[in-house]
């Protein structure tokens, strides 16, 4: 699937939900089931600090595509992180650099991404794009 297809798929999945509870139950399930990170990666080095919940992020790059792994101490944050990774994992750097993540808006999660919401998600998107930029630069060397 292309990145656009994954986004459309996500948006249709969310359209099925009648109310906020369904939506949050889905996110919570994503959070619970998400692979997360093993404890050795939950260190300062990988920490993206939000004021209220913490997010840890790692990335690797192989054959033109990036693979992220992430975790959070809050389950809702972790669920949203998993949503994001579903979209960005396996993409090439340029695709990620170009993505504006406004699909989160369309699935009713905009508020979690407000730069003034101190849950670390905005910083995480910044960090994802930074990784993409770094990998792209390396590629061009």
């Amino acid at each position: 699937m292309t990145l656009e297809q994954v986004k459309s798929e996500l948006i249709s999945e969310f359209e099925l939900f009648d109310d906020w509870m369904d939506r949050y139950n889905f996110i919570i399930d994503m959070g619970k089931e998400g692979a997360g990170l093993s404890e050795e990666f939950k260190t300062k080095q990988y920490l993206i600090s939000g004021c209220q919940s913490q997010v840890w992020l790692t990335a690797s790059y192989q054959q033109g595509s990036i693979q992220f792994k992430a975790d959070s101490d809050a389950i809702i944050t972790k669920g949203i992180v998993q949503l994001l990774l579903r979209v960005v994992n396996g993409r090439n750097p340029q695709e990620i650099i170009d993505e504006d993540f406004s699909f989160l808006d369309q699935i009713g999660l905009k508020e979690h991404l407000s730069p003034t919401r101190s849950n670390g998600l905005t910083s995480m998107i910044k960090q994802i794009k930074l990784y993409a930029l770094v990998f792209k630069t390396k590629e061009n060397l």
Partner: protein
Amino acid sequence: MSLDINAIRSQFPILETQVRNKKLVYFDNGATSQKPLRVINRISHYYLHENSNVHRGVHFLSQLATDAMEQAREKLVSFVHAESIEEIIFTKGTTESINLVAHSFGNRFVGAEDEIIISEMEHHANLVPWQFLCKDKGAKLRVIKTHDDGSLDLNHLQSLIGPKTRLISIAHVSNVTGVINPVEEVVKMAQDKGIFTLIDGAQASSHLQIDVQKLGCTFYVFSAHKMYGPMGVGVLYGQKAILEQMPPYQSGGEMIDRVCFSEETTFNVLPFKFEAGTPMVPEIIAFAEAIDFINEIGFEKIQQHEHELLSYATEKLLAIDGLKIIGTHAHKSAVISFVLQGLHPYDVGSLLDQMGFALRTGNHCAQPFIQRHGVSGTVRLSLAIYNTLEEVDLMVEALKKVKNMLS
């Protein structure tokens, strides 16, 4: 006669707001309270009929605004039982009041090797300014330990007090737990040794009667916005004799007597010496209106109502399995901080928010205290005069739902 809660609620139209298609339940009063109509209208009235710059104006409007502002100052004098208007300085809020003291008192009274005592439970506003001052002056910061129930360890305080202690600065009421500190005792311990005291009353001023003369503290600080008043204004009460010895803080218009390039610049008298620049006039005037609101209800009824809410909420919350209250000390104001075993406060808060509840989660700007209790944060319920038992019931029900969703 007990409180007419409907009459009170009707003065706060925002309480009828719909949030996410649910009725708002506002339990974030420790962060900021809502404002009664009379306070909101007082601001509009000012701009519609009195607006002008103060103090230096010869003209009618300026005199009107000045008089209203100075009457507000008089009201604050009575509210805290200060001796005179010279002891009431208007600031942006508690944070600025403490910064002013840390700077000006610090410059005059704190030297290398001197010691400042604060407590483990302090809000960052009553912590970081002292860290800065100590670093700047080569002084030492001493931190009073707290008991597991959230109360101050007075024996530890006693052991910290020494010949080098210059100031003890503590909260009247903890913003995390609602625990009321024995400030009378602390001030007494300080006075015996000639030590100055600052009481951070940010969480006390809408709940407890303040009498600075009886208390005997050197400084007492609080914010209007946490006591039904507007944002952007607060008070520094200081004993006149000490304020007079302190150098100015900010400088500019109004705090100046005479400015000259060749001679020394001389300063205006108290309280103006500490009020540089155009003040927040309508906020100050509306602050007085908030004080009238409080006085007309009276602290007796306020405390009775809030105590009832606190007892009821505590009981109902403790009945939830896995819920732990941080700060179980008996002497408390209407604040409850809790954690739900295994659940992150951010998750709990986010779901409660979806159901229309306004609560605060996190470290409440008191990171060291939160760490001391071995949690990553708490959910905080902070109650005010307009909250009801029904709202508490709603919240307890909601919390059970949240637990189900997250477990």
